[in-house]
């Protein structure tokens, strides 16, 4: 456990040295801050727009941070050959992968917390203190970001960086569309097509499960049951990503 923690901490420290992540974070904060520009609207409309823009910015820029943070966690070490110093030590490869996952999660967490504090401060400034529904939305966004990071990390163990970026973004977009696909599956008459589509629906991560912000900003309530199941879904998917990462990293000739 200590080894994993040290690897994670090292991954985190290495990432905070990269300027790319700072730039993405600054962009996120600018976008969240810019949502104050809607003051010409009525108070209700303005608050809705602040929440919409901020949630979207936290998610979108968070996804960028997750992808770029996880991208070089393993492949970067292989490229720079610093991985040799690790694998020659009495450390299991699984410790390296899980440690890297911890490190990527820390990067996502710190950036997420900074953007969240800024957003919540803006809400308090607007005399609309965040309620539990806002916190549920943020919690699900956080788990979505960790999931994105773990998938990128897994892809990094067996693909090139360029392919990894394309694949991660592709999954991010498709993952938000799968719930629409569900409607089409229900309408399909051919049993084979239906079965294949159903399988695809399970295989592709359904990021839309984590998206409750559209409902929260208009005053809908989401039960803790839904939040709990979605978090469980995220954790199960993270496990799959980690198993894939472990399999390919252990198989890899280094």
């Amino acid at each position, binding site marked *: 456990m200590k080894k994993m923690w040290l690897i994670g901490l090292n991954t985190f420290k290495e990432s905070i040295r990269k300027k790319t992540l700072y730039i993405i974070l600054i962009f996120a904060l600018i976008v969240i801050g810019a949502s104050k520009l809607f003051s010409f*609207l009525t108070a209700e409309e303005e608050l809705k727009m602040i929440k919409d823009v901020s949630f979207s910015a936290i998610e979108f820029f968070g996804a960028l941070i997750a992808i770029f943070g996880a991208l070089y966690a393993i492949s970067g070490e292989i490229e720079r050959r610093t991985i040799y110093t690790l694998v020659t030590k009495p450390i299991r490869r699984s410790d390296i992968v899980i440690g890297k996952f911890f490190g990527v999660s820390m990067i996502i967490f710190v950036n997420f917390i900074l953007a969240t504090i800024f957003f919540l401060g803006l809400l308090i400034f607007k005399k609309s203190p965040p309620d539990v529904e806002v916190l549920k939305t943020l919690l699900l966004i956080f788990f979505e970001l960790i999931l994105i990071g773990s998938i990128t990390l897994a892809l990094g163990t067996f693909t090139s960086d360029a392919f990894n970026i394309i694949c991660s973004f592709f999954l991010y977009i498709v993952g938000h569309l799968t719930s629409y696909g569900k409607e*089409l599956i229900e309408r399909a008459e051919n049993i084979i097509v239906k079965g294949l589509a159903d399988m695809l629906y399970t295989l592709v991560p359904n990021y*839309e499960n984590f998206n409750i912000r559209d409902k929260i900003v*208009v005053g*809908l309530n989401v039960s803790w049951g839904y939040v709990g199941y979605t978090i469980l879904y995220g954790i199960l998917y993270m*496990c799959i990503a980690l198993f894939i990462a472990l399999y390919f990293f252990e198989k890899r000739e280094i």
Partner: protein
Amino acid sequence: MKRKKGYRYFLAIVFCFICIHLVQVQIDYRKKLENLESALVLMPGQMAGSLILGGFKGLAADLLWLQMETYWHSGQHYKILPLLQAISWLQPSYILVWTIGGWHMAYNIYAEVKTPEEKQFWYQQGIQFLKKGLAYPFNANKYDIYFELGWTYYHKGKDYPNAVKYLEKATKYPHPDYVDDVLAHAYEKNGQIDKAIKQWEYVRDNYVAFYDIAVRMINDLKTKGKATP
């Protein structure tokens, strides 16, 4: 040994996918139960389209709303209509879209058109738009659209039976004080004087801001049988 480990990972992954399938069934069920489902929308226009693809429907609705504000303030009322439809499509639970949309058709466009037939047409369009908003369960559990319907029937259509019907529905959900006030007026206009007096008594006893008006109205209704001009 390595191959054995590979099988273990494979089995673990299959097991996780089975669990995911079961969890997803639960999530889909709860989505249906809690009105969290998203409808399939394919919008014209690159900006809106690409935002929807990224799962940013709320943001797309906001951009359209800002565009609508621009049209509104420049007096291009007809251009607002497709935007209203699009926003209500993207975020049907955004109650303001329905109330503003209905008001916009039954009042703003109504005022712009010339012939009585056209005016009647836009009044009906406004009413229909508001009723469409009630088709969404979340909106049907709030006072807003019922009140807007009741008010439009009362004020614009002079259709008092329908006004009473919807205003009564509005008072069943948490609502501001003026809803009860309008309902009292509607009862009177609908010829239900006893109910109007009772409603004014309720307003007098519950809302300090309306106390003086309520006392005067009760007095007028009891003495003259008429209070609303």
